[in-house]
């Protein structure tokens, strides 16, 4: 048995570490997002490795994981110490530092990565402005190099770039022992939606044969069911703050999600429905939204919620007659739904 988290502190017997993990901690200077994505051979890596707080920093603690580095590191970052100093402070206070691996990024994009000399081969990391990438018990250095390239070359929001790094890490041979769990955390400052400071994207795959693909699958669900709305919220916020450029970027993210979803062969109806609904009710990307709603309807033709979205999109596109027709069909599947009746009346009266 490899020593699990914390055992090392209490017993003399030193078994090789349980790690076999690769991770990336990163910062986006435009959106102020901070995030961590990680994959491991260990169970529920998301409980141990990733730690992040908006405006503070992001930490990945692994190999013979010292989980206290998470809250302790965030505490030091909160006091304004730069990432490299925080890393040194954590390691200096730890007698087991030769077994640790740690990546730290602060809220100004400074980064640091450490690999203890007793981490099992191959182990190492790479850093650049705004990111720290590291892994242990890997197939080789190509894993972290591949992650770096994917992170730097991928366009779009931070979560997409973090997931692309995991995919590239695995494609380069990844974790020598195979896969069990994965996690992604992204945090983002917001006064109006303070929950984003702790959980903007916060998804787990605890025990799965193909954890990275499963993580991407649930991330696609999140795009439709939470993130599209979040982007519109940030767009509204930036508009009010006089930052039209950033507002446009946020709306562009929704368009990217739509493009992804429409290009995907196995997209989930709920993702399409969520994207279409968000676009319809906010009057953005209506043409693509119509395609998404039609595709969702093709996947689940008797789902009243999806038909309602399709009707709403038609209505916002100026096609009230089609809206009434589709909503009437929805009502036939859910005859007691007062909301659907109100919608039909609304479409007939022409009010927004």
């Amino acid at each position, binding site marked *: *048995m*490899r020593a*699990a*988290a*914390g*055992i090392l*502190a*209490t*017993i*003399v*017997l030193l*078994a*090789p570490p349980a790690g076999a993990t690769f991770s990336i901690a990163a910062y986006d200077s435009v959106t102020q997002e901070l995030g961590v994505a990680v994959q491991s051979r*260990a*169970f*529920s890596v*998301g*409980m*141990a490795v990733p730690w992040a707080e908006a405006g503070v920093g992001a930490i990945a603690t692994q190999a013979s994981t010292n*989980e*206290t580095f*998470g*809250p*302790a590191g965030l505490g030091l970052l909160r006091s304004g110490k730069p990432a490299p100093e925080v890393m040194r402070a954590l390691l200096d206070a730890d007698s087991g530092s030769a077994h640790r691996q740690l990546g730290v990024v602060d809220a100004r994009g400074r980064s640091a990565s450490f690999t203890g000399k007793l981490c099992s081969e191959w182990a190492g990391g790479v850093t650049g402005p705004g990111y720290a990438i590291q892994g242990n018990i890997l197939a080789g250095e190509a894993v972290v190099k591949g992650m770096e390239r994917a992170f730097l070359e991928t366009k779009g929001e931070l979560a997409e770039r973090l997931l692309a790094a995991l995919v590239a890490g695995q494609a380069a041979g990844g974790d020598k022992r195979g896969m*069990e769990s994965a996690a992604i955390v992204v945090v983002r400052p917001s*006064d*109006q*939606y*303070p*929950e984003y*400071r*702790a*959980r903007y994207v*916060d*998804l*787990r*795959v*605890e*025990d799965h044969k193909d954890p990275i693909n499963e993580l991407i*699958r*649930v991330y696609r*669900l*999140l795009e439709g*069911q*939470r993130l599209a*709305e979040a982007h519109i*919220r940030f767009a509204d916020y930036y508009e009010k703050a006089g930052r039209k450029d950033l507002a446009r970027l946020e709306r562009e993210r929704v368009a990217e999600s739509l493009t992804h979803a429409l290009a995907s062969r196995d997209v989930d109806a*709920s993702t399409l429905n969520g994207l279409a*609904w*968000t676009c319809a*009710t*906010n009057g953005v990307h209506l043409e693509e939204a119509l395609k998404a709603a039609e595709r969702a309807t093709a996947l689940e033709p008797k789902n009243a*919620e999806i038909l*309602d979205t399709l009707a709403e999109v038609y209505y916002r596109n100026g096609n009230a007659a089609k809206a009434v027709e589709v909503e009437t069909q929805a009502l036939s599947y859910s005859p007691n739904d007062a*909301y659907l009746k109100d919608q039909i009346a609304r479409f007939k009266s022409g009010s927004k």
Partner: protein
Amino acid sequence: MGEIRLHRTPGRGLPAALAALACFALAGAPSASASSDRGTFSIVAHDSVTQELGVAVQSKYFSVGTDVPWAEAGVGAVATQARVDPSFGLKALALLRTGLTAPEVLRALAANDSAWDARQLGVADARGGVASWTGSKCLDWAGGETGADFVCQGNILAGPAVVAGMAKAYRETQGEMAERLLAALDAAQAAGGDKRGMQSAALLVVRPSATRPQFSQRYIDLRVEDHKTPIKELRRLLEIQEGFHGADNHFHYAEQYEAAGRADLAARERERVAETLRRALARRERDASMLNGLAWACATHDLYLGDAVKAAERAASLEPRNVDILDTLAEIYFRQGNSNKAIEVESRAATIDPKSQYLKDQIARFRKGVKG
């Protein structure tokens, strides 16, 4: 339909509460989505012996664990649901941190919310105070039940039996908080659960520890984001967690209690590991890493070696070429005084992984009879 159940109202008042909220923008934006009313059931609890605070939740919507459960050791635990305002999680914890009781927190949140009659919340504070709120506009059936140290609540449920079943199961189940919380979810589902079905579940338990500060945020923190049978999947994960981390965690608390002169509580923590072992053997656990984690924790603490060896043997039969597992089995044989068998098993491990210095050191150690 809903009411705030008030337990007691000590001195700390709303001014402190409002100061705590000052760091948040109070105007909540109305949600645009037609489906923003989400069917959910949850339980929020406090354990006065272990100081654990926890939330378990199931819902017919994606990734309920992102929005509903919030907890911090020494502070409180919150479930925010129905027309979910996820910001209530952090706001409630900030209010609890100022010393407000659970019922006072609900009053403070209500005072600043324009959609309070569509909300549902459960709150437990770190002194055992609890409160549950179900707004009159929560969709049928909606309601909650308040126990001595827990609250359970749900909306868009099959009926009142769902919440009653949760409460009964939590009261009657023995063992640690996570087990009791999951038993409550099981009972809710058995009573019809969420009218709309199942999609996601989450379990969050926090616990104070002087030397493991991470437990203040994540003692047990498991998620099922999108699954056909999320509660069943959550139980599967908890069973793995019990071997993988749980046994080590209980030994950690046993040592803390011993050092604090609380031998009774230390014995209770160790008993939790014995229970886990018995349950794993009884259900013929098939997850080798779970069995291995459990056996290793027992071996290195010289406890329950009789059952631990059965767990390790079972793990080795499931994965006969897994070096970690063979090492665990060898370690237990050695601790049981059977050096020959320990050397034999570890030598088998060393033939599978001939480069490992660790395994060579172990064999040398077994030959010498050094305990480690």
